[in-house]
């Protein structure tokens, strides 16, 4: 009886997932002059979500549930990192069984995804790494363990400024490095660690180049595409992601020469901050850009926070490199789950200036309390700097599309009017 219900749930979820993915991809492609190289990403996501949602070929796979988990270590242990954070409404509904109605859709969807796919992924997923960041991720440790997944709770401090917090996190990451060796059967060595850091650094270098191309006026790449590219980072195989992004960068460089920008010349330049938009939930970036604005930069953990910061080490001993990787994922972090998060305000202000931003879209997933709570202080800082902000509280369901698009259009019109007055 229970099994039958589970099988039915699995089937209907996969059907809904495929529909949802197809629709988002349709909307992504439905812009004039998308870069040809973007089709590599459209195809990847289409293949992944419209068939069976299967795991990558390269084994062993270590799933991670947060940008805080240092990928360098996973690469160094000879495993493939896979991001588990899900943006699918279909999975969210499957996860609703485990979590309260008002909790975070992202965590709900991730739990739902693992629940639905546990038979399919069971053995291939060697570990599910959950950094103890926000409360909801902390709590999912228990649900997922009960489901039978090999969960690894990576202990993270609630603050980052003090020496105590830094050493706590470093110790926790060092222990993770040791344990990873046991999980994958390949011990992390000096050489493999250096190569692991090199891999992530390569990604970060490509991301920074892309970042720079979005800064031009008018920008060369739309935010909805940039989001998809960074979403691909955790899901695609490392080399194919790098190859695809290199191709995209080359094409955008060419477009720069031919003066072929992505947005209209006077399109409002917006910054997106807040909860992470993860495919297929690209609702907000899509609505914003369909309304004629361009998201030129972002401060979200599925994009710039994930790839921007780069590790450096001095002497290159294993101990030092692991510590350096730990620092990279804690010290520059601007996640609102940390107390004293002034760095987030500084980062947003720096980005608004550097990218000549006209306005900010603050995206909060309903139930993602840390982001909802920081809305006020971010809004205050921005209004002091004379930059308008639109606060959107939404979830994965398509129900509020109409209401959202009205608000977004009004916001963009008001920015356009401001720009004309100037």
């Amino acid at each position, binding site marked *: 009886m229970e099994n039958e219900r589970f099988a039915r749930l699995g089937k209907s979820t996969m059907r809904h997932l495929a529909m949802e993915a197809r629709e988002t991809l349709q909307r992504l492609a439905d812009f004039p002059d998308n870069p040809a190289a973007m089709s590599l990403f459209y195809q990847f996501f289409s293949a992944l979500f419209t068939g069976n949602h299967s795991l990558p070929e390269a084994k062993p796979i270590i799933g991670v549930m947060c940008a805080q988990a240092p990928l360098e270590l996973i690469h160094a242990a000879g495993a493939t990192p896979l991001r588990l954070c899900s943006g699918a409404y279909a999975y969210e509904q499957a996860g609703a069984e485990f979590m309260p109605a008002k909790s975070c859709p992202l965590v709900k969807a991730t739990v739902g995804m693992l629940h639905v796919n546990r038979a399919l992924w069971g053995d291939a997923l060697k570990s599910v790494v959950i950094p103890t960041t926000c409360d909801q991720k902390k709590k999912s440790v228990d649900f997922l363990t009960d489901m039978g997944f090999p969960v690894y709770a990576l202990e993270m401090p609630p603050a980052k*400024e003090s*020496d105590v917090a*830094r*050493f706590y996190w470093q110790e926790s990451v060092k222990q993770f490095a040791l344990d990873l060796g046991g999980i994958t059967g390949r011990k992390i060595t000096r*050489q493999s660690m*250096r*190569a692991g*850091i*090199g*891999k992530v*650094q*390569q990604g970060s*270098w490509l991301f*920074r180049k892309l970042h720079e191309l979005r800064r031009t006026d008018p920008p060369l790449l739309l935010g909805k595409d940039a989001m998809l590219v960074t979403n691909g980072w955790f899901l695609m195989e490392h080399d194919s992601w790098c190859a695809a992004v290199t191709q995209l960068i080359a094409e955008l460089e060419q477009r720069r020469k031919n003066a072929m920008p992505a947005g209209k010349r006077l399109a409002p330049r917006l910054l997106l901050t807040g909860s992470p938009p993860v495919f297929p939930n690209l609702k907000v970036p899509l609505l914003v850009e369909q309304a004629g604005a361009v998201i030129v930069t972002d401060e979200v953990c599925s994009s710039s926070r994930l790839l*921007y*910061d*780069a*590790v*450096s*080490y*001095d*002497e*290159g*001993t294993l*101990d*030092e490199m692991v*510590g*350096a990787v730990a*620092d*990279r994922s804690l*010290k*520059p972090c601007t996640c609102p789950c940390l107390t004293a998060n002034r*760095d987030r305000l*500084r*980062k947003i*202000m*720096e980005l608004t*200036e550097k990218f000549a931003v006209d306005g900010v879209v603050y995206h909060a997933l309903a139930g993602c309390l840390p982001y909802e709570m920081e809305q006020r202080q971010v809004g205050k800082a921005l209004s002091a700097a004379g930059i308008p902000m639109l606060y959107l509280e939404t979830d994965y369901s398509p129900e509020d599309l109409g209401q959202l698009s009205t608000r977004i259009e009004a916001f963009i019109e008001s920015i356009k009017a401001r720009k004309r007055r100037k």
Partner: protein
Amino acid sequence: MNSLRRAVNKLNLSRFRFYFQMGAFLLLVYGGYLAINIGDQLPAFSCVFNEQRGGSCYLMGFQHQMALPWKQLFTGRGIGVAIGLLTFIGFFLLLNKAWCGFVCPLGTLQDWITMLRRKLRIRYSTYGEPLFRKLSVIKYVLLALLILIPMGMGNSVFGLPRLNEDFSVPFCMICPGRTVLPLFNGDFSQLAIDFSSRTKMILTALGMAVTGIFLAGSFVKKRFFCLFCPMSALHYLFAKAALLRLGKDGAKCTRCGNCYRACDVGLRSIADDVTSKNMVKDDCMMCLKCVEACPEEGCLKVSFLGLPVYESTEAGFFKRMGKRANGK
């Protein structure tokens, strides 16, 4: 000009610094053979006890001058003292704390000991930041003593009897520069305890102990001795006016801590302070490893008289780190 600047910013500065230090070491330790003397008021430990030196450390002359009776300071001899101090300041302002990071033979020696440890694949030890702040007081105490003890020799302070002549140049007696640098010219005579008087015995025994601590300490902790260096304390009094500067644009800083981790003397302000413009703090020796480790475009900047010399760039950072990922 711009392409030159870009090329400079991509430099592996540590390698340049290694050769510069080597050159400075040769000049200051062996310069005497070529009759070179670049000055007697150098803001670096080019020890006077080393016969073949190419210039002299200011501290020895300074301690001698401090031993003058106060009355004489207001006569013609006072002009000599003032000129000495001004020459020292002049030298110092030119390079700022880079005297420590690029020139000082004792600093270079510590960096070589670090390299040896690195070759032996022994990891360095790290300490929490509060400890450093506590230790940084010691060098000011030493600076005060190296002024007050000679003064006590030349004058009767508060009616106390004058200190005896054996207290002459007290800091030199405990400085590892005196014992170690002459060794490079085959002079082992300083490596001994002087039993001619009780004062001398205590001072030279302390000197031997400090030498041992210097060698062992710098093997474990990068630039160990620099934390206690009274020359560094004297430097810092004038550092705000120096021509060579290390500045920071706080808005660009992500506080990732790369610079803090690279810092041999553990200055946390380099990573955490986003308001100060001047980053040369108390213990800083301007080795500029922080600039190399910074991935933010134009966040950390070295300038001379306001002209940019070297600054952190994205391209430079990724070039340097990319090479290391490939095992170079």
